[in-house]
């Protein structure tokens, strides 16, 4: 515990919204860098596209709502929403995926509820769920890590694939997504789920060629990148530790219970922690100050609740990853959680 050793007055720095958003964006960089290192520049193109669309749709809806435009855009929340959506969708998804998602997030989920601070649901995750439900094929086609590419993809190839669905040489995104030996590439969670459904055990899966060919190492590195970014956010005190720690502890405990119950059919806690969107969710999405719980106890409940939903859906649900669903369901419970976890006022009885 460090004691303050300077003399009074102790002034506290109040960060403005745009400063916070900028810091969050900066802390996303390690994860984004690793993602584009493994999956190609498609990722950065998506970010460029989504943030442009986010700013444009924010401007449009602000004109329609007759609200101040420049000051609202400058808070950076639309930009952050766009970037988060771009990170979550597959790097070579068609361009309209990013556009539909971002327009929906900014206009429907945020501004129609009254703008930043009024929205019940996390805009980026609501958009992700919309896209996943509406366009399941495009949303689950992850390209293999670059070292496993059967074709070498130039930047122009990727731009072309994003806008037309084909590379310059005429290969479709579906072709790129199958590796050299014709195996369909999927995320590790996806591969594990499919193999479990076809009756294999976990140890068989981890030794199978499908799993080794999947992008599991890349996903682990990306998660590590977001963990580092998140720790910087914690250190900078942009976010408080309650939600990420409660969430990660929850994931470990709940997945350990399932793992201990039947290690053949349930993936291990460590795998849970470093696959899917766990780290991105823990530090960047669940901690959204608008849609998360605001009391100390409430934040812990909120993190644990989201963790429980993630583990339940990943282990027995229909979708391979569950973070977006968990965030939306936890968002719905926030008013309720906040109501019952109000701190006691000093001097008042129980």
């Amino acid at each position, binding site marked *: 515990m460090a004691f303050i050793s300077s003399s009074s007055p102790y002034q506290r720095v109040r960060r403005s919204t745009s400063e916070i958003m900028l810091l969050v964006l900066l802390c996303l960089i390690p994860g984004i860098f690793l993602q584009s290192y493994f999956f190609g520049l498609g990722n950065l193109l998506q970010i460029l596209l989504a943030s442009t669309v986010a700013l444009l749709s924010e401007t449009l809806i602000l004109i329609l709502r007759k609200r101040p435009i420049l000051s609202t855009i400058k808070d950076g929340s639309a930009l952050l929403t766009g970037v988060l959506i771009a990170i979550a969708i597959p790097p070579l998804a068609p361009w309209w995926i990013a556009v539909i998602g971002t327009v929906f997030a900014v206009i*429907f989920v945020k501004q129609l509820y009254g703008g930043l601070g009024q929205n019940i649901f996390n805009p980026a995750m609501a958009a992700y769920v*919309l896209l996943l*439900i*509406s*366009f*399941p*094929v*495009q949303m689950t086609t992850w390209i293999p890590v670059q070292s496993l590419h059967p074709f070498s993809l130039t930047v122009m190839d990727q731009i072309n694939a994003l806008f037309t669905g084909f590379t310059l040489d005429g290969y479709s995104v579906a072709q790129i997504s199958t590796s050299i030996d014709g195996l369909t590439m999927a995320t590790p969670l996806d591969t594990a789920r499919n193999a479990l459904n076809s009756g294999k055990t976990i140890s068989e899966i981890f030794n199978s060629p499908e799993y080794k060919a999947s992008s599991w190492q890349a996903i682990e590195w990306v998660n590590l990148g977001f963990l580092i970014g998140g720790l910087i956010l914690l250190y900078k005190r942009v976010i408080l530790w309650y939600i990420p720690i409660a969430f990660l502890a929850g994931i470990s405990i709940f997945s350990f219970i399932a793992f201990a119950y039947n290690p053949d059919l349930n993936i291990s806690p460590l795998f849970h922690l470093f696959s899917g969107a766990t780290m991105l969710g823990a530090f960047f999405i669940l901690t959204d100050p608008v849609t998360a719980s605001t009391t100390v106890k409430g934040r812990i409940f909120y993190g644990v609740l989201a963790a429980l939903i993630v583990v339940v859906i990943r282990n027995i649900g229909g979708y391979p990853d569950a973070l977006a669903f968990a965030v939306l369901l936890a968002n719905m419970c926030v008013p309720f959680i906040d109501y019952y976890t109000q701190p006691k006022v000093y001097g008042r009885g129980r």
Partner: protein
Amino acid sequence: MSERQTEVTTQQIPPKDPAVSYTEIAWQGVWKNNPGIVQLLGLCPLLAVTNTVTNALGLGIATLFVLIASNTLISLIRSYVPQAIRIPIFVMIIASLVTCVQLLMNAFTYELYLSLGIFIPLIVTNCIIIGRAESFASKNSVKYAAFDGLMVGLGFSLVLILLGASREILAQGTLFAGIDALLGDWAKELTLELYHADSHFLLAALPPGAFMIMGLIIALKNKIDQRVSK
């Protein structure tokens, strides 16, 4: 005891509202107090079966028919119905009418009957019908009551069709798909394919999409009202 009974049966018919006129009924039923988008009644079938125009049209016509018939019948018997048990009596009348409609649809539009499923018998519980019976038909003469049933039913059907059309265009890119189930084989050519895409906007066919489009339609109506009142 007998005194009380006579008191119940000889209840006074409320004096006729001078404001009731055909134009007023039509305006209230179709636009101002539209059951679908202003009173927000009957949301369950409204959102559940409007994934295609055919389904919407089928349910709309069925509801329209039940509304006209129930309003007429209830208006005919309104002076004989004891005040205390009027609701059960209304429900009995509505339920028998819905049973008729269900049997008719089973006989003549079997495919549509299958695709609407439980929502045909559920017309009984549609609050629009009991609402009109209670608030209008039991207080007004037969001709007005029948016309009110027609107009409210039209207002509801219009919302159903608008919602069905926008959801069908977004989710399937067609209009009037499967209309032959309602109108017979000659109508097969009515089906329009507006565009063809590799992937459709599935959400529009699901309940959340229905809620969103419904919200947009309500917003549009309010916007038009604002424009007009300016």
